[in-house]
């Protein structure tokens, strides 16, 4: 059972990270992963900015990840979140969850992403031609997250 959380201040390679994570796993049968990529939205979005609170953000994410490991009986979790300025097609976030069977791996990965989207201490701003806008979680994000709080 291992939890790895990293804040990346520059570009990272999701598949290389995933390969290294898989190599460290024990007898896992299931590995679910999610990579969030910056969309260019038809050329509208020019840059994306992510802020974090150094130390606190990592600790909060790791605390939630540990709870998720226990809740779903995961073998391992990897979370890498990019911060700073990034451009279209850059990887923003990678979440991987390993388990004996696939249901736990999918649910763990899904639950962690919902947390990162709408509850982790991160702040996201889109820089467009017409100015910069702070993003807030969508109704869908809130509904997604509520699925895990219900039980």
């Amino acid at each position, binding site marked *: 059972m291992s939890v790895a959380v990293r804040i990346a201040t520059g570009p990272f390679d999701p598949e290389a990270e995933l390969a290294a994570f898989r190599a460290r796993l024990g007898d896992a049968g299931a590995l679910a992963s999610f990579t969030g990529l910056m969309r260019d939205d038809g050329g509208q979005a020019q840059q994306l900015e992510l802020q974090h609170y150094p130390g606190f953000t990592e*600790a909060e994410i790791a605390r939630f990840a540990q709870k998720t490991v226990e809740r779903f009986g995961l073998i391992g979790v990897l979370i890498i979140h990019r911060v700073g300025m990034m451009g279209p097609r850059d990887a923003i976030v990678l979440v991987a969850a390993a388990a004996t069977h696939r249901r736990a791996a999918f649910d763990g990965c899904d639950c962690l992403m919902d947390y990162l*989207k709408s509850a*982790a201490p*991160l*702040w*996201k701003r889109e820089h467009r031609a017409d100015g910069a806008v702070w993003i807030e*979680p969508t109704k869908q994000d809130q509904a997604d997250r509520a699925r895990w709080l219900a039980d």
Partner: protein
Amino acid sequence: MTQLRVLFFGKLADLAGAERPIDSHGLTDVASAIAVLTDAMPAIAPLLHPEICRYVLDQQIVPAGAPLAGASELAFLPPVSGG
């Protein structure tokens, strides 16, 4: 003079700057620090409301009534969004 390092994030940092030291002498709790800050920057007052802002004192989430004691860092976290 005892200094308290105050940190702002997201939308709050646009209005108040990312970091601002205040003299914590005579301040008792988080609420009293909020009073000093909103006196100086009335525009941020609505964003510091406990319903939409989380208070973090020396890396621990605390309520408005938490004593500052010897804390060195107070952070204000507006609504979050990542991923």
